[in-house]
């Protein structure tokens, strides 16, 4: 009654289902890894965006870039290091829209937990505002330093000259400290 499928057809169907299965497994693995390290994304968003709309756009872009380049992720390096590379690069190249400086404080405050005390919130906001005063590359280096990445990792992520990393970090630290103290006065 039913025509028997040829071995070629069976092979192709198996291949397709295997590929779908592999893709689903890969997606699951990807979502779990991102879920575990999502703090990195939120910190990058807080540093590189200035309003909710921009935040949503960049979040979407980072997720898409991470997913598109996930097949190229080699497990020789840590997932967080690879994630930093892709997410920072996306943030650096992302189209910037109208910047609303006065709104920046409020946006950061809204994104922080409502259970947190006002004093603590203010300190965190001041720190974010201090980082915000830096240029795009300095912001990236500051983020990596604050995430306590060592010099070698920063070098690996940024592709910077070895001698530059130390000098650059100490300058950024000084800048952040100065601006942070100034910000805290408000």
């Amino acid at each position, binding site marked *: 009654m039913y025509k028997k499928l040829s071995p070629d057809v069976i092979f192709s169907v198996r291949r397709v289902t295997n590929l779908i299965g592999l893709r689903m497994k890969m997606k699951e693995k990807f979502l779990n890894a991102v*879920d575990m390290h999502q703090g990195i994304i939120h910190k990058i968003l807080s540093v590189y965006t200035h309003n909710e709309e921009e935040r949503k756009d960049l979040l979407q872009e980072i997720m898409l870039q991470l997913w598109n380049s996930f097949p190229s992720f080699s497990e020789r390096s840590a997932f967080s290091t690879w994630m930093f590379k892709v997410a920072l690069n996306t943030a650096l190249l992302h189209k910037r829209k109208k910047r609303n400086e006065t709104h920046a404080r409020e946006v950061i405050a809204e994104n922080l937990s409502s259970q947190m005390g006002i004093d*603590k919130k203010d300190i965190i906001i001041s720190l974010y505002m201090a980082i915000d005063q830096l240029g*795009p590359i300095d912001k990236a280096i500051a983020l990596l330093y604050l995430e306590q990445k060592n010099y070698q990792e920063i070098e690996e992520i940024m592709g910077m000259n070895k001698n*530059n990393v130390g000098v650059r970090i100490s300058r950024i*630290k000084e800048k952040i400290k100065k601006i*942070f103290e100034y910000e805290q006065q408000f």
Partner: protein
Amino acid sequence: MNSNSENKDKDILKIWAKAGKTLNSQQQLNKEKMETLLSKTSTEFSSGIKRLLKADAIFKVVMIFGFITIAAFNLNNLFVLGTSLVCIILGAMTIKQNRILIEGLNELAEYKGNIRSFLEKDIMYYKRNIFRHPFTLTISVFLFYVLGSMVYYEIKYDTIRPIQDLEDGVVVLFLIFSTLFSFVIYYPYFTSRIDYLQKLLNDIDHADLINNHIKDNKIKKRKKIIITSILIILGVLALTTLIIAIF
């Protein structure tokens, strides 16, 4: 003094560590949110250019069919046959260019390396194709204008003729103007991108540079908007003059 500075460093690191744990629950990503984000389209510069190139290639294919149709209705008119053939070849050649450019952009999307190498790769790609991008997009405007003029002559005079009088001359002038206008619009789009990427790359190399790149970019954007507006106003004025002159 030194230990005071170290303590401040540690304080900042502690504050930062806290910042990561104090995110509003609404901002937290769950798997459903992540899946929704993955189903959306990229708004990134290269992805935008890729979509533009794909749409442009489809547009060219449509116009090639248009030229074939026009030529089919004017088999005895050597001028139409010659012009259509040139336009079809030009269209086909630039469709191939579109494909090469899209492949190049796909390669850019492969993240293998560090931020410096991403930037270098991007700069190299855009520098290599600094004329190709605007050229291939400009050709579409050129083809559209030629096809549009042919259709206009066919409908108005029932025939397509080579340049004979002032009206034909004005049509040719407008063809040159619109082609140049299109190139002038597209070209800075890519040069400003290279400038921005180059500044970021320089910033990685030179710690002493003042990081005002975004501000610079904004000023350039404003300049671009002003130039574009002036060109549009000039175009509209020229078109109005032409319409008044004809009727």
